[in-house]
């Protein structure tokens, strides 16, 4: 830069600011540097940008080394000491009052911390993979008759071609999981011991390149060899004890020889992929007796990691691959792994909710409850403020400014909040195991950075929200009247306090209303007819020898009256997942894309599920041609007249309709009913037996079935489930929500009660003399209660008026997520009004009784 060029002047205010905070000795060199930098910036950038940079650079000097040592800091410190001393004296002098005050706050905070623990646990899912931000779960959208269905996974040949031709895809792994067989294996090393049942997955060898599951011993890429298997630490321990099994051979299903290639650390509970063993895909094919090339058109759960992380581009590239034309009504979407756990529901092809919507509901509950306990805190603090009158008066006379009093009371609130949060955090921590029982989950108290930051934020926000108002009120006292002993008129405007109580009761009203709707909806779902009696059905997994000797097994079982029916099926009857639109019938509109659920079964199954033939006949087992039975809705959708004997095509296969059965539900009732078609399969091609046993003797029946099981298959141990329990599990999440909201409701009611009690105590104390006079003039108890409670009747009314529309709106939103839902039950609104009014009046009456019993002369004499 030339010496004669005029200099640009940096913003003056920034310079002033620097002088304000910076030590004198540093001002000159720093200013010089900033000035020089500014000249350079001005040559390159606009004036505005340079000024902005100058400011940023100046502010950046607010660091300990440069700051002035301010002499006033010492004074602040002394004030702080004094505040702490006053605070501790307060606590000692009025322990009950202060502990009730803090306990109320702790209540709210416990709920908040528990909710946070839950949210934090679920947010920590799948976060431990190094590549987590580049990993995607592949989902498939299928379009039919204007609707989009999203399913997990993608067609093998599509992902195969994608991997070959799209350079941004780093690794792809296909996964087979959640099949009853072979995903669940009966591991048996010792002949004489029962099986160790373990759930595992089958995956491509790139699995361990995408995910970070720690391998403890053995090969780092354990799936390269098609006849290998890797075991989790705990399964290895159960099977082999302390011997390291790596390199040993094992017979899968007692006939297929594999080598144990590695032992990996148990999968953490915060992984959405859970597996106790993992084996190459090829092993699953071999177990199924399938060739690899025959699997190409099947859909597999698929994950991929990207190099440049442009998911949208890769999505487009996959969907424009030549092979995608083959699947014209489908498109692939990439769902980020880190979101997969929280957003598992899809609406119109986009991730819409799942756990995340519960996170929101629970968050709302927690904030409600915290708000309520803060209101209590404010009410109690200001109501009792007269006790501090003298202290404040003396402080003011000695020259305390309003600001220093604000500071003092805010610090006091902060200390109280810190104490209550510590208590709440401890209680929350200890309560987590009980919470787990309540909600049937395995959440852990994870004390990570995010959690600590949230706790600190909550402490800060709670302090500010609940501290500012009392601080303003307390610092407003007039020192003269306080010191002259003129009775203090009570802190704060009564209207504000009244409105706070109204808010509180509105909130608890909302919580009570919502909880009852949760319960009603859940109850509705669970009692909704599935079209058959769910009780007394055992779901049994057959082994090869049961399937091969199906007839003999059935005959053997039916010999006892404990077993009435048995049926074989190739799908999960309560959560059937296979859906297709490749069904065609005579007169079908070629553009129509109605979806159907094909389930393969034999006659026995229909009897187990009490699906009586309405029209036509059962399957004819001796006839090997393709036969189907339609449900009523399926028939309705096809709009066939005289359906029996007609032919329709499924997957291009010609099938004859032999019968019609009533509708039944084969899925969770979140989704709307998809019409079901049952086609005849031989027992050899099924994977599940359903057995109807005597409901009145469950344990006896199951023991009997187990005995027969062993008779046919001595090697394995019977694996069975009770259908009704499995059905209840489909609504586990709803159950969790309602247990939690019951918990929240109880807390809400307790806190509201404390609030009402606080306000009514305050009011009664204020009206002591009035009531004394009333009594002297002949008022009786009822009249006095009436006088004291009129205000509260209004409070109850207004808070209900506020709570009704708010809770109606939330209810309607929540219920709209269900395909089968109740209407908003209007009768609960007036019930809530009566309930709140009754509780409030009861509390007020208890309070008033104290006053009524008083001798009026005592009150009046007390002048």
């Amino acid at each position, binding site marked *: *830069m030339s*010496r004669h060029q005029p*200099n640009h002047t940096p913003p003056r205010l920034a310079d002033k600011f620097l002088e304000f905070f910076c030590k004198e000795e*540093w001002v*000159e*060199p*720093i*200013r*010089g*540097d*900033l*000035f*020089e*930098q500014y*000249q350079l910036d001005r040559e390159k950038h606009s004036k505005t940008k340079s000024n902005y940079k100058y400011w940023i*650079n100046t502010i*950046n*000097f*607010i*660091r*300990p*080394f*440069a700051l002035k040592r301010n002499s006033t800091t010492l004074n602040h410190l002394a004030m702080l000491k004094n505040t702490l001393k006053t605070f501790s004296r307060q606590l000692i002098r009025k322990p009950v009052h202060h502990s009730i005050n803090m306990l109320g706050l702790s209540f709210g905070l416990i709920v908040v911390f528990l909710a946070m623990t839950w949210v934090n646990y679920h947010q920590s899912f799948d976060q431990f993979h190094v590549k987590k931000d580049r990993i995607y779960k592949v989902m498939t959208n299928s379009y039919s008759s204007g609707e989009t269905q999203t399913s997990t996974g993608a067609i093998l040949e599509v992902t195969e071609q994608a991997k070959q031709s799209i350079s941004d895809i780093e690794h792809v792994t296909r996964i087979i999981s959640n099949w009853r067989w072979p995903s669940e294996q009966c591991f048996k090393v010792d002949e004489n011991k029962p099986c160790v049942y373990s759930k595992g997955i089958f995956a491509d060898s790139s699995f361990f390149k995408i995910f970070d599951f720690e391998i403890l011993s053995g090969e780092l890429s354990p799936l390269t060899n098609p006849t290998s298997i890797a075991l989790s630490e705990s399964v290895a321990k159960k099977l082999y004890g302390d011997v390291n099994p790596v390199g040993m051979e094992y017979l899968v299903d007692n006939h297929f020889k594999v080598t144990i290639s590695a032992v990996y650390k148990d999968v953490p509970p915060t992984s959405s992929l859970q597996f106790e063993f993992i084996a190459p895909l090829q092993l699953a094919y071999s177990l199924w007796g399938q060739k690899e090339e025959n699997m190409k058109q099947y859909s597999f759960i698929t994950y991929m990691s990207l190099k440049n992380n442009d998911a949208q581009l890769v999505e487009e590239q996959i969907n424009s691959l030549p092979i995608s034309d083959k699947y014209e009504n489908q498109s692939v979407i990439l769902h980020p792994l880190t979101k997969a756990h929280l957003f598992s529901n899809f609406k119109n092809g986009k991730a819409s909710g799942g756990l995340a919507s519960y996170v929101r509901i629970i968050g709302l509950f927690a904030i409600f409850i915290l708000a309520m306990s803060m209101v209590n805190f404010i009410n109690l603090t200001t109501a009792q403020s007269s006790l501090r009158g003298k202290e404040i008066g003396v402080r003011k006379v000695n020259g305390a400014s309003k600001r220093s009093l604000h500071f003092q009371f805010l610090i006091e609130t902060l200390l109280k909040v810190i104490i209550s949060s510590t208590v709440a955090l401890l209680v929350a921590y200890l309560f987590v195991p009980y919470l787990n029982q309540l909600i049937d989950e395995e959440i852990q108290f994870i004390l990570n950075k995010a959690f600590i930051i949230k706790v600190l934020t909550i402490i800060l926000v709670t302090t500010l929200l609940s501290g500012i108002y009392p601080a303003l009120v307390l610092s407003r006292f007039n020192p003269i009247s306080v010191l002259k002993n003129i009775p203090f008129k009570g802190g704060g405007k009564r209207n504000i306090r009244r409105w706070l109580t109204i808010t509180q009761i509105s909130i608890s009203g909302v919580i009570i209303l919502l909880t009852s709707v949760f319960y009603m909806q859940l109850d509705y779902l669970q009692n909704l007819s599935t079209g058959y009696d769910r009780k007394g059905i055992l779901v049994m997994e057959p082994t090869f020898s049961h399937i091969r000797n199906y007839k003999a097994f059935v005959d053997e079982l039916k010999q006892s009256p404990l077993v009435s029916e048995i049926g074989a099926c190739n799908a999960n009857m309560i959560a059937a997942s296979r859906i297709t639109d490749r069904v065609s019938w005579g007169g079908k509109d070629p553009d129509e894309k109605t979806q159907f659920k094909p389930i393969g079964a034999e006659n026995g199954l229909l009897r187990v599920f009490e699906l009586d033939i309405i029209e036509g006949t059962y399957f004819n087992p001796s006839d090997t041609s393709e036969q189907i039975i339609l449900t009523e809705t399926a028939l309705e959708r096809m709009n066939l007249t005289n359906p029996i004997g007609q032919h329709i095509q499924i997957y291009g296969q010609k099938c004859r309709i032999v019968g019609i059965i009533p509708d039944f539900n084969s899925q969770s009732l979140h989704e709307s009913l998809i019409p079901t078609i049952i086609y005849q399969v031989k027992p050899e091609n099924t994977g599940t037996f359903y057995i109807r046993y005597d409901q009145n003797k469950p344990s006896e029946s199951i023991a009997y079935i187990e005995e027969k099981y062993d008779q046919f298959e001595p090697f394995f141990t019977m694996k069975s489930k009770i259908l009704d329990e499995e059905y209840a599990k489909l609504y586990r999440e709803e159950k969790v929500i309602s247990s939690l909201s019951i918990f929240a409701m109880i807390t809400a009611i307790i806190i509201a009660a404390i609030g009402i009690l606080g306000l009514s105590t305050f009011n009664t104390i204020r009206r002591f003399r009035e009531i004394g006079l009333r009594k002297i003039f002949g008022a009786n108890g009822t009249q006095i209660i009436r006088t004291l409670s009129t205000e509260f009747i209004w409070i109850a009314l207004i808070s209900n008026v506020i709570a009704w529309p708010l809770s109606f709106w939330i209810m309607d939103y929540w219920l709209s997520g269900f395909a089968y839902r109740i209407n908003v039950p209007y009768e609960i609104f007036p019930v809530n009004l009566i309930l709140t009014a009754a509780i409030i009046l009861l509390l007020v009456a208890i309070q008033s009784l104290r006053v009524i019993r008083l001798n009026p002369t005592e009150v009046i004499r007390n002048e």
Partner: protein
Amino acid sequence: MKGTHLGEFEELVLLIIGVLYPNAYGLAIKQEIADQTKRSPAIGAIHSALSRLEDKGFLKSHLADATHERGGRRKKLYEITASGKQAIEYNRSLRNTLWNQIPELAWKKL
């Protein structure tokens, strides 16, 4: 006692001051760091490090004459002291010793 440990950034600043001798002052150090390492630390961070290093006794400073470019303000020029030199030498020899101890075999797998 502030301790004589040398942080990574402090070491960098110390080295750069050596490189710039005798013209090492705040902004020049920042620019040199930007040129040599492609990082761009805030100028406040540089001064903070300089103040720390001076407290530890690794640097000494004096004020130079005022110049036009700086709007008539003086630069604070820094020099490495003997103990500063000792500190970077110690870091260097420590690194070399450790480096020499890594067996050839460790590199083979890469």
